[in-house]
C-alpha cells in the first residue's frame, strides 16, 4: 500500500485488508506512538463531516504527526472558484498525505491521478468511503473473532446507503449471508442482488425488523431519512418501523452486536446503549485505530 492512494475498498486485496486490520489491532494495544513525527497530513473537507475529520485528526495526533486543512469549502480558496486539481496540486506541496471528503462522485479518484502525494478518500458523494468500510470490518472481526461465513442483517436505507453497499461488497468476499430489512421504497438495489447471485451467496429481504434479527451475528443499522421518500406519507407510515429497541434483542444470539456508522437520530432507541450488544460507540473508536493503520501503511512507516 506504500505510496498508493486509497479511493475505493475495491483497490485493496484481501491480504491488504488483513494487513490493515492486523496493524489496527497493534495500534489498539499501543495507541500512542511517535511514528508519524515530522509528517504532515492535510484534511481537505470540501463538505463538512465533523465525525470523520476528527477521527482522522485524532489518529494523526496520537501518532505525533501534524494536521493542516479546512473543514468546509466556504472557508477555503474553493469558494473563490479554484478547481479541484489546483487545490490538490497546491496542498500536495504542504503535505505528505491528503485526506479528502468531497460531494462530487469520483473526485477522489481524479485527485489521486493528479496528486503527487497519496490521497485517502474520506467520502466522495454517494460513491465510496473506504475507511468506514475498513473500520466496519475491523469491528466485525473484533466482535466475532472472524470474518468468514457470518450472518449480516442490514437495516434501514438500503437504497442510498453508501456504507451498506461497500460493506456488502467487502463481506461478500468472506462468504457472508445477508438479510435486508427496509421499507419497500428503500430496498437494496437490484445490482447488488445480481452480484450476490453470481457469487452464490444467500440473502433474504424483509420489511419487518423485530422478526428477522434472531439469527444475526451483526445487525447493521442505518438512518431512514425523510428526504429519501418521494411521498412524505410513505415516510410517516414507516418512520417508526425501523427503530431498534431493547425488547427486540431478546432471543438474539449472544455474540450478536449492533453496529451503526453514526450519527444516529432515533433509529436505535437510547435504552439499547447500555446493552452489551450495543457496539456503535466502540465502532467509532475503532475508526481511529483503523485510520492510524491505513495512513501508516501508505506513508510506509510500518
Amino acid at each position: 500500500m506504500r505510496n498508493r492512494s486509497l479511493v475505493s475498498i475495491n483497490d485493496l486485496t484481501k491480504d491488504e485488508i488483513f494487513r490493515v486490520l492486523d496493524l489496527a489491532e497493534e495500534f489498539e494495544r499501543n495507541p500512542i506512538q511517535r511514528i508519524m513525527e515530522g509528517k504532515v497530513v492535510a484534511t481537505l473537507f470540501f463538505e463538512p463531516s465533523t465525525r470523520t475529520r476528527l477521527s482522522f485528526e485524532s489518529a494523526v495526533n496520537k501518532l505525533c504527526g501534524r494536521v493542516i486543512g479546512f473543514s468546509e469549502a466556504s472557508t477555503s480558496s474553493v469558494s473563490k472558484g479554484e478547481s479541484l486539481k489546483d487545490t490538490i496540486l497546491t496542498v500536495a506541496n504542504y503535505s505528505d498525505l491528503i485526506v479528502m471528503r468531497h460531494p462530487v462522485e469520483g473526485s477522489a479518484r481524479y485527485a489521486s491521478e493528479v496528486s503527487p502525494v497519496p490521497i485517502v478518500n474520506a467520502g466522495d458523494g454517494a460513491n465510496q468511503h473506504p475507511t468506514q468500510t475498513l473500520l466496519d470490518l475491523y469491528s466485525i472481526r473484533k466482535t466475532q473473532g472472524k470474518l468468514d461465513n457470518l450472518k449480516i442483517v442490514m437495516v434501514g436505507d438500503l437504497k442510498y446507503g453508501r456504507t451498506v453497499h461497500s460493506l456488502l461488497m467487502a463481506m461478500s468476499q468472506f462468504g457472508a449471508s445477508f438479510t435486508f430489512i427496509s421499507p419497500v421504497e428503500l430496498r437494496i438495489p437490484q445490482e447488488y442482488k445480481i452480484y450476490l447471485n453470481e457469487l452464490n451467496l444467500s440473502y433474504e429481504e424483509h420489511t419487518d425488523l423485530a422478526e428477522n434479527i434472531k439469527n444475526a451475528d451483526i445487525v447493521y443499522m442505518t438512518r431512514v431519512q425523510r428526504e429519501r421518500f418521494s411521498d412524505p406519507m410513505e415516510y410517516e407510515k414507516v418512520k417508526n418501523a425501523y427503530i431498534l429497541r431493547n425488547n427486540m434483542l431478546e432471543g438474539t444470539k449472544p455474540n450478536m452486536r449492533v453496529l451503526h456508522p453514526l450519527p444516529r437520530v432515533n433509529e436505535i432507541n437510547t435504552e439499547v446503549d447500555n446493552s452489551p450488544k450495543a457496539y456503535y460507540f466502540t465502532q467509532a473508536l475503532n475508526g481511529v485505530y483503523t485510520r492510524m493503520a491505513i495512513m501508516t501503511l501508505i506513508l510506509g512507516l510500518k
Partner: protein
Amino acid sequence: MNDKKHLSVSAIQNGTVIDHIPAQNLFKVISILGLDKIPNQITFGTNLESKRLGKKAIIKIADKYFERDEINRIAIVAPLAKLNIIRDYEVVEKMLVEVPDEIKGIVKCVNPKCITNVENVTPKFRVVDKKSVSLKCHYCEKITDQEHMNYL
C-alpha cells in the same frame, strides 16, 4: 453483385469505406474519427436503405487507413460497422469493429454528480458488457447503459 453497390464501394482508388453506420450516428462517427479535421477527400451518403439498420450511412475516405484501436472507438455508436480497405479500386480487406475494454472520451457519464460532469475531466469507462455496451465509470463507478448514452 449489384452494379450500383459495386460502384459506390469502388468510387475511391485508395482508402477506406465505412459501411453499415446507423444513419442517426453518422456525424458522431465523423467526429469520433476526427474526419472533420483531416484534409482527405471524403464523401458520404446517408438515409440509405438497409435491411439490418433501417436507414444506414456510408463514408468513403480517400487515402486513409485506420489503426485497429482507432476504429474500435466507433464501436459504441456503430457496433455493426464494416470497413472495406480499398487499394487500386479493389476491396483488399474487410474489417469489423470490436468493442474495446476501455473507452476514453466519446461518451458522457450518466451521473450528473460525477466529477467528469462537474470539472474539466475526460470521462473514462471500463466496458462491463460488450454485447449491450454497458460502461462503468472509472471515476464515480456508476453504470452508463446504451439507453442513457450521450456523446461528448
